């Protein structure tokens, strides 16, 4: 990363992590249950947003710092892979195989579809 990007990436990384924490708490309070709705929603919406930013840069006329700073900093820290695997593993350990399959399959299908929609939108804009 170019050195001037370091501070914005750190700040947006902090913002992404706090946004994830608060949104996960909000979703968990409104829709309690064993299915990890918070992380699911966060990963799908974050994929859509990073797709949009990447589409703007790769296929559109967006400046490269859009993905280098906003994408890497915010989207990267907002979405999470480790919590996703931990929660999926816990569903498997608790023998909630249907919920685990729904979490893994649903996150992948909607995450990839969201990213593709974002890429197309970014290219179109």
């Amino acid at each position, binding site marked *: *990363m170019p050195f001037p*990007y*370091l501070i914005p*990436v*750190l700040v*947006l*990384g*902090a*913002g*992404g*992590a*706090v946004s*994830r*924490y*608060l949104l*996960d*708490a*909000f979703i*968990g*309070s409104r829709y*309690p*249950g*064993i299915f*990890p709705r*918070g992380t699911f929603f966060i*990963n799908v919406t*974050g*994929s859509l947003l*990073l*797709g949009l930013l*990447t589409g703007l840069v790769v296929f559109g006329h967006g400046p490269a710092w859009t993905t280098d700073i906003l*994408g*890497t900093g915010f*989207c*990267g*820290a*907002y*979405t*999470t*892979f*480790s*919590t*996703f*695997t*931990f*929660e999926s*593993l*816990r569903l*498997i*350990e*608790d*023998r*909630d195989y249907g919920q685990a399959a729904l979490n893994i399959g649903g996150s*992948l299908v909607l*995450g*990839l579809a*969201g*990213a593709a929609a*974002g*890429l197309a939108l970014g290219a179109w804009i």
Partner: protein
Amino acid sequence: MTRRRQHPGEPFDPDLDPADPAQPHPAGASAPPWSWQQRARPDTLAAVASGGAVGAGARDWISTAWPDGPAGFPWATLWINLGGGFALGLGLVLIIERLRPGRHLRPLFATGFCGGFTTFSTLAVQSDLLIHRGRPGLALTYVVVSILAGLAATAMGVAIARQFPGRPGS
């Protein structure tokens, strides 16, 4: 069918304290009411923010030092996600079942650092770009390996952490 938690001492939601009333309950159990604002304490948010900044910075540094080719396999993100999954499994079980430190280490390390270091959105966008560049097989391999090895890495971290002796009286 009755559902029994295999490890009832551990949180289901790794972002929450095991005693947090917001912890998801097994099907059928009634959860006490709580509000999400109760979790928005400034010191907790500061811990999440600090961990998230360091995690994002470390991810940025690794992916810059180890860039992917134009249609190459995203090795950097794969190793970041596997390493972060292992670290979360290991660290979270150590923190909750063994060390039992104060209430700042978990939001700092688990929610902040591991959550900020690993990324799901980059995995999704990289896979879509591989498909777009005519490498659907590579995209499928990337996704399947990420998921299976990610689950295995997290399980390995959890298993190693459980080898450590517990605190007396716990």
